[in-house]
């Protein structure tokens, strides 16, 4: 499965392992994500999905193996450097700036792509940042709540806002860690609808428990089990795979 960069691969994990003490959380994982696809990463609890995302975004550093992004080795970079290379993510437990307004939340993210900070410029003078911020609020459907303090938003809105923040950094690859975690089935359906508009045309790696969401959104699925890649294929292939059924679906 060694794919070259030429074939549109944007993210390439080569034999990546991570151990905590004696526990192998991620074991010898190879994974390639193509530009423009929505790849789902599934697996039972403790399969190492979130750890894998942490390895890609630099929150943890791989014990061995390499993470290549657009052909560049990012294995040992810090999270902020990786973000600047073009990888953005949401977290399983919503991570926003709770005391700031929705507008300022998005602003902070949009502004991060500017490099020079003149301490005597008023932030509001930056027309381009303002335009992008307003565009993102439009896209997420949160324009009407722009001045709401974000800790007062509904939980579903917070999840959408977090995606909006992640997208505001204009990433080439977006990692979503269980976007529907903590939502009721009803709310999940609503969220997925809103996600579709938000996510179309982007390259995404999605970790998700809800199989309905995975089947609906993803182009390809990778199954992790005990830190190892168990299977990879299209949604229908995965559903039919005997092996996946046995370990993951628990039948």
């Amino acid at each position, binding site marked *: 499965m060694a794919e070259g960069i030429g074939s549109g691969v944007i993210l390439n994990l080569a034999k990546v392992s991570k151990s905590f003490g004696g526990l192998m959380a991620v074991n010898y994982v190879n994974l390639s994500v193509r530009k423009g696809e929505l790849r789902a990463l599934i697996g039972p609890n403790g399969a190492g999905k979130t750890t894998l995302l942490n390895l890609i975004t630099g929150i943890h550093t791989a014990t061995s193996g390499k993470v290549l992004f657009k052909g560049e080795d990012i294995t040992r970079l810090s999270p902020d450097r990786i*973000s600047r290379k073009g990888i953005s993510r949401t977290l399983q437990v919503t991570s926003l700036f709770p005391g700031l307004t929705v507008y300022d939340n998005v602003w902070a993210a949009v502004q991060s792509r500017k490099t020079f900070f003149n301490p005597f410029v008023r932030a509001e003078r930056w027309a381009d940042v303002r335009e992008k911020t307003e565009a993102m609020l439009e896209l997420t459907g949160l324009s009407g709540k722009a001045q709401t303090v974000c800790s007062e938003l509904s939980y579903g809105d917070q999840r959408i806002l977090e995606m909006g923040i992640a997208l505001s950094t204009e990433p080439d690859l977006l990692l979503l860690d269980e976007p529907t975690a903590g939502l009721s089935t009803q709310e999940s359906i609503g969220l997925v609808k809103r996600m579709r508009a938000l996510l179309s045309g982007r390259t995404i790696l999605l970790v998700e428990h809800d199989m309905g969401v995975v089947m609906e959104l993803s182009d390809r699925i990778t199954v992790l089990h005990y830190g190892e890649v168990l299977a990879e294929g299209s949604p229908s292939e995965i559903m039919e795979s005997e092996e996946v059924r046995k370990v993951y679906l628990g039948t």
Partner: protein
Amino acid sequence: MTEILVWVLFAISFDLIFGYTGLLSFGQALFFGLGGYAVAIPILKLGAGTGTGLLLSVLIPALFAVIVGYFSVKLSGIHFVIITIIFALIGSTLGETWAWLTGGADGLVFTAPPIELGFFQLDPADIKSTYYLVLTVTALSYLFLSRLVRSPLGKVFVAIRENEERARLIGYDVQFHKLLSFVIAGGLSGLAGGLYTVALKYASATFLHWSISGHAVVYAIVGGGGTLIGPVLGAGLIMSLEHYLVNLLQATDLVVGAVLVSMLLFAPRGIIGILQGRRK
């Protein structure tokens, strides 16, 4: 009055790092005390001018803030609080020991030479001139900080206060920005210390003691952290309270402590919070 203005400057510089960047530093006294010496020692031992001294009182503490901050911002929460206390303690211990340089706890007494400002002269020996000097510098620093916190950089500081992890994930170098905020705050704390010594004509190792930082903490909390006007109000209110209470009963710290604790319990956003609550 001059003294209140000095503490206002100290309080707003502390508020930049606590109220905006979210780091509770009990080590600001180190920079305050250093600022004092940065004025006193050059004037006394090298015959420097007051203007040079005040410039040094920004630069030298800022330089120390780079060193102290470099280590301190690696830690967060309680550990950050403690490491800043320890740095201040090292400062005050050394300050007391190196009496040949610092005068120890007795301090250095000096006369600040007049500042020539083109066609008129500012003489620190004159109480009124000192007042205007301190007023001008504090006002300028306030303007500087208010521009700073409204700038994109200020937004980064606030983002770090609100959620360090998220700030990092959207691409901000959190440690660098914390350090930056720490150094700016350190430089301004130093300036406050410098002005204080010019006003008192006296610099002492006791200014380096970590408990001096407590003043800034109290003013910022009572006035309302995360706003610049809050610490100004806090410093003004507490200082005038102290001023009247000294004559009434010898219980300034008791009242300060009680005000601090009750603000934390009943109005965690300080005087500003109360005022804003009213308006709503």
